[in-house]
């Protein structure tokens, strides 16, 4: 900056300290349309003196060209353009916003005023176009003749606060998106939890849109309230997270379960101002747990029952056999048959089992050749219990056939057939086990487990009869079952 000797403090035309006061006084204004300061009209001197005293960024755009005179605060805003900007034409000094300033000059030089709040402009800063926001106030400066001779502009950059607010909005938006993205119920509570301020129920719970005092009546069941309140009191007392799985009254009035967690929000002095919470719907999980408990209970019962069955089989097998080795073999085979029957039932989830499946499973493994075993009948679904009993009985008959009956020679056959028939309107089931082609048969001297199982057990199980006949041509067992043997589900 070359100081003009003529301007050197000879004209106390305006007071004003700071860098700009000195710069303006020393500037060679003779090269501008304004001419040397000594020639300036009083109006320009007055406005220059005024802006130099102001801490607010102010610029005067004088004459039709808008020659720029500004203060220290404005020089900060001008950045790297300062000090070259001083004395330049506004449309050239701010080339990138020349159109904007052209409009300002036209309006204000015609006596108008302009005011912009958070006006966005793109200014070149550090060599790069950059968006900035400003509060801009323009008004004309009248000369001695009372006509507009220049424009005074108060220029306050608001970029920081605009961006700050924008970040805050974005942050709020993200927060809203987060609370919308989660399927959790979101709620807020007063510091003492006496008032629910808001709850977004997500269809799980009823909404609370304005503060509600009686929220416990709405959401909690009377018998749960004392305990839940004690957990709330503890969280308030220790200023720590509230966390609890508890029952809730759902939006449809039914009982549900929620996993609720709320954090305290503190003021500067560390006092709780409110609580912010999220509660997820764990009703299904709770129901599953309850169901699992039932299943485990039922499983325990079945295990006990199975142990009792094994006990029964052991007692029957070992009491009547004097040959220990034979008894052990029979016992093992019976346990295996019981195990396989369980598989058959588990496959049908204990709802019932196929008669054909049960027969096939009990009989086939013992059959010496494929064509020495004939299984005939339209399949029916039996209750799980009947299928199990029938499997055990068939196992007994199959092992007997192998040892003494039709399968003990090289050509005998076993046929298992069944059919349903109506009697007094009830659909009964007849099953026949028939052996032929085996060695000649005579009734056994002693009745074993198989006989007891069939004649005493199976007959009752099927609610009918089970008759064993040791005919000369071969062993025959006829089972006449009542309607009760079919699966009810």
């Amino acid at each position, binding site marked *: 900056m070359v100081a003009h000797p003529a301007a050197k403090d000879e004209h106390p035309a305006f007071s004003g300290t700071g860098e700009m006061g000195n710069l303006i006084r020393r500037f060679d204004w003779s090269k501008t349309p304004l001419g040397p300061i000594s020639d300036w009209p009083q109006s320009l001197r007055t406005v220059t003196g005024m802006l130099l005293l102001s801490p607010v960024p102010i610029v005067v755009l004088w004459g039709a060209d808008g020659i720029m005179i500004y203060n220290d605060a404005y020089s900060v805003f001008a950045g790297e353009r300062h000090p070259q900007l001083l004395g330049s034409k506004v449309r050239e000094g701010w080339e990138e916003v020349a159109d904007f300033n052209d409009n300002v000059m036209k309006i204000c030089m015609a006596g108008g005023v302009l005011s912009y709040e958070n006006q966005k402009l793109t200014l070149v800063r550090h060599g790069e176009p950059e968006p900035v926001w400003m509060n801009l106030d323009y008004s004309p400066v009248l000369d001695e003749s009372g006509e507009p001779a220049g424009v005074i502009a108060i220029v306050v950059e608001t970029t920081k606060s605009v961006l700050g607010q924008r970040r805050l909005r974005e942050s709020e938006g993200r927060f809203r998106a987060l609370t919308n993205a989660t399927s959790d119920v979101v709620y807020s509570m007063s510091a003492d939890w006496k008032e629910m301020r808001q709850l977004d129920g997500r269809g799980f719970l009823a909404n609370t849109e304005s503060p509600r005092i009686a929220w416990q009546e709405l959401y909690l069941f009377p018998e749960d309230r004392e305990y839940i309140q004690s957990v709330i009191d503890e969280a308030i007392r220790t200023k720590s997270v509230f966390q609890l799985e508890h029952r809730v009254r759902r939006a449809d009035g039914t009982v549900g379960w929620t996993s609720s967690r709320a954090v305290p929000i503190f003021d500067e002095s560390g006092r709780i101002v409110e609580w912010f919470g999220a509660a997820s719907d764990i009703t299904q999980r709770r129901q599953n747990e309850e169901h699992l408990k039932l299943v485990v*209970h039922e499983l*325990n*019962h*079945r*295990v*006990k*029952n199975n*142990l*009792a*069955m*094994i*006990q*029964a*089989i052991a*007692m*029957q097998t070992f009491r009547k056999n004097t040959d220990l080795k034979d008894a052990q073999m029979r016992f093992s085979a019976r346990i295996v048959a019981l195990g396989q029957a369980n598989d058959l039932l588990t496959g049908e989830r204990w709802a019932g089992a196929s008669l054909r499946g049960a027969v096939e499973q009990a009989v086939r493994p013992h059959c010496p050749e494929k064509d020495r075993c004939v299984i005939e009948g339209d399949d029916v679904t039996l*209750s799980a*219990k009947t299928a*199990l*009993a029938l499997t*055990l009985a068939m196992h007994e008959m199959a092992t007997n056939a192998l040892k003494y009956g039709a399968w003990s020679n090289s050509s005998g056959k076993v046929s298992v057939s069944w059919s349903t028939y109506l009697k007094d309107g009830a659909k009964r089931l007849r099953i026949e086990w028939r052996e032929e082609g085996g060695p000649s048969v005579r009734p056994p001297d002693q009745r074993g487990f198989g006989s*007891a*199982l069939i004649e*005493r*057990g*199976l007959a*009752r*199980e099927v*609610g009918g009869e089970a008759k064993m006949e040791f005919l000369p041509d071969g062993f025959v067992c006829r089972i006449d079952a009542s309607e*009760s043997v079919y699966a009810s589900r």
Partner: protein
Amino acid sequence: MTLRILVVEDEMTISLLVEDMLTELGHEVVDLAMRLKQAEEMAATFDIDLAILDVNLDGHKSFPVADILAARGIPFVFATGYGAAGIDPGYQQWPVITKPFLIDDLRRAVELLAPPPAAA
């Protein structure tokens, strides 16, 4: 003393076991019911001193049978894989034996309800 006993048990092999155990203890098994309806009919009409009741009869609880017996003044023992926890609150004065059980468990439960003359 020979007691006339009704056995209600839906599992075939177990029913044979209970029957054999009771016979061995010197009692007479009058009959064996495997279904609820059948058990109710027998409980209502049979001339018996005592009953052994399985709790779960093919998915149905046997408590209605217990009610019929109690109304007739006939004592009974519950035999169940659920244990005492599987007995409804109204029936907790009756002895429970948990499956599987020993012949002595059965004997003690029966004697609790029908003490032998020597011990009475």
